[in-house]
């Protein structure tokens, strides 16, 4: 089985080689005539008014936290699913409990407006 990961590595290297080839051809043949206007960030055709401050709504942050919680849940569910036929009813009860606890958190997030996007 170790070999399989080596194969993946070979694939990645091949992909990288391919990409490098593609990009280096591009460097050889394409023109390069920069002008100050050309090098500005895009601002709908008018000169840049103010620099980028990089502030954005905290909702993205909330979504990211929720994602982490539920993604970990998914990771827990994967091995459970694979072993499910051996666990039987025990596995079912345990997992339903697990999901219920998470759903309580989900209901909380929903009610408190963490899923609102306005």
């Amino acid at each position, binding site marked *: *089985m170790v070999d399989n990961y080596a194969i993946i590595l*070979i694939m990645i290297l091949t992909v990288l080689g391919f990409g490098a080839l593609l990009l280096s051809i591009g460097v050889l043949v394409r023109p390069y005539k920069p002008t100050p206007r050309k*090098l500005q960030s*895009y601002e709908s055709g008018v000169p840049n008014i103010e620099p980028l401050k990089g502030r954005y709504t905290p909702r993205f942050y909330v*979504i990211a936290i929720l994602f982490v919680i539920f993604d970990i849940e*998914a990771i827990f569910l994967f091995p459970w699913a694979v072993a499910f036929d051996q666990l039987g*009813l025990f596995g079912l009860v345990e997992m339903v409990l697990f999901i219920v606890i998470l759903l309580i958190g989900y209901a909380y997030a929903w009610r408190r407006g963490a899923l609102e996007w306005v």
Partner: protein
Amino acid sequence: MTAGDIVEYVVKSAIIIVFLLTAFAYMTLYERKLVGRVQVRHGPNRVGPGGLLQPVADGVKLLFKQAITPRGVDFPLYILAPAISVVAALVTFAVIPVGPGGVNLFGYRTDLWLADLDVGVLFVLAMSSLGVYGIVLAGYASNSKYSLLGGLRASAQLISYELSLGLSLVGVLMLTGSLSLNDIVNGQGGTWLGFIPRWYILVQPLAFIIYAISGVAETNRAPFDLVEAEQELVGGYHTEYTGLRFALFFMAEYINMVTISALAATLFLGGWRGPFFGGPWWLLLKIALLLTGYVLLRATLPRLRYDQLMHFGWRVLLPLSLLNIVITAIGIVLLG
């Protein structure tokens, strides 16, 4: 691992890459043609017979475009971002079996897959998560408002739908008892009543629907293409990219479509299995059908608003996918 093996794997990788790049090129043409037909137009038909050389012309054009690097970008990340997107998209395909193992090909015995990871499903999910980095970094490194907002929106959308995508697979895993894509395909061999194929879509219809919807969202395709909503965000995270660098993002998007379709075929539609002729042809046919579905979606549906998109992902798909898991578990326990 001998030198011969390494050559074999390099050749196989190259075949996959060339296949995917060709698929990407002609997918763009197919899409433009089909959307044209839906809108009672012809689509591109000037370059080559029936427009068949259009992708080649596009490629050459992109190759000769200037690569403009705007001032103020974080250059290493700026260059890394498209590379990550493409590598993640291409490498995902490595674990998808396109045919049975141990086939005689030109007098050479080989398996019709590149790698048979025993955690293939996890690998696919991990790679698709890696793809998010490309988008976030592109948005962050570009030093542009549109890029930043586009990147953030894209990553929020991707992670939201990744949840239901991953959870929709749990049902299939419970039926198979394995994370290996080969085992999953083999689990779908045979028929019920002699003529109905034992495809998982028939026992996991809800999971397939959730997977299909999440898959469309994961690839940022219409009606979930808010990432590139021209009216609000110009080009989204790739606003500041030109020429080949821009083409790489485009390439990643289309290759992801192919991969998501291939994965849908593998997980729910029996993979390369089918009556009359087996192997890669059935897989190709299934992928082509699913891609047609993609294009038709784009041709017919308007774009969602962003709040609708997030609500749908978090309030509809996520509970549904959990429900699907519980139903599947109860079903397995009851039916043995």
